[in-house]
């Protein structure tokens, strides 16, 4: 009996490659450790963390949450379009995803600028060190994913029919959704957890 014969049919063509699933899981563990250190500091210095959170722009963070959720919808539809061979639909979905990602970055820069202008630099206190580190690491993930989306867009006209291209887009999509997944937890942890 061949090996493929023992694998249930729904797993014979999984989304993305094993490498990206492994990479994302390792990234999940790294962020878990960062969150744990953040929590231990928050328990040690609850007043400083509550005061720090009160200065953050909650509305920009909410807008960013909605932008990332919407971008994930566009990415999921883009992957679906690529599987259908609908190049035109896939390209505009990827562009819409990039626009949402771009707006997220603009919001983030505005937020950083406002905080730094008010004197809340990473050296201000422990809360701000973590705030810049966690959101900065997430921001770099967004930028990295956007570079891959641009790469997929550039190659779309020539390669969309190839299995390799579909895999590449699925990998990019998985990473983009992971960025969304991280923000789903960062948002309440940094921006809501002082009010509740």
């Amino acid at each position, binding site marked *: 009996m061949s090996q493929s014969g023992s694998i249930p049919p729904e797993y014979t063509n999984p989304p993305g490659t094993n490498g990206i699933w492994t990479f994302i899981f390792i990234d999940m563990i790294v962020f*878990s450790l960062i969150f744990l250190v953040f929590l231990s500091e928050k328990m040690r210095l609850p007043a400083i963390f509550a005061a720090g959170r009160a200065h953050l722009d909650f509305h920009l963070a909410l807008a960013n949450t909605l932008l990332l959720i919407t971008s994930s919808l566009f990415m999921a539809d883009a992957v679906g379009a690529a599987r259908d061979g609908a190049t035109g639909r896939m390209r505009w979905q990827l562009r819409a995803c990039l626009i949402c990602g771009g707006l997220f970055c603009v919001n983030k820069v505005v937020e950083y600028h406002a905080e730094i202008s008010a004197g809340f630099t990473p050296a201000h206190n422990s809360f701000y060190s973590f705030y810049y580190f966690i959101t900065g690491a997430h921001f770099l993930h967004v930028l990295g994913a956007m570079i891959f989306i641009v790469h997929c867009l550039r190659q779309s006209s020539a390669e969309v029919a190839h299995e390799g291209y579909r895999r590449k887009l699925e990998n990019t999509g998985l990473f983009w959704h992971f960025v969304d997944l991280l923000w789903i937890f960062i948002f309440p942890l940094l921006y*809501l957890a002082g009010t509740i």
Partner: protein
Amino acid sequence: MHVRETRSAALSNWLAWALLVAFTLVSVTLAELLDWRDIASLVVFAFAVIKGQIVAVKFMETPRALPMWNVLYRIWILVIGIVLWGGVFLAGHGGA
């Protein structure tokens, strides 16, 4: 048949998006309005776990990945939600 499947997947994605937006807005409203902060924090992080599961299942398609990844990713979402809520709860009660 193929077109019907594609439309069904697109509708399913839109439904997932609508749920994610709804959970986000309800979380924010609860965090702003609810006086009973322990319940509010529990609900907010429970909603974050539900949102994470929606992203994993509908957008990342973890049920179509190898079973190991499906289990690991979905357990991570559940565990990180519980740990974050626990940490916030303890910090709100003067630390561990």
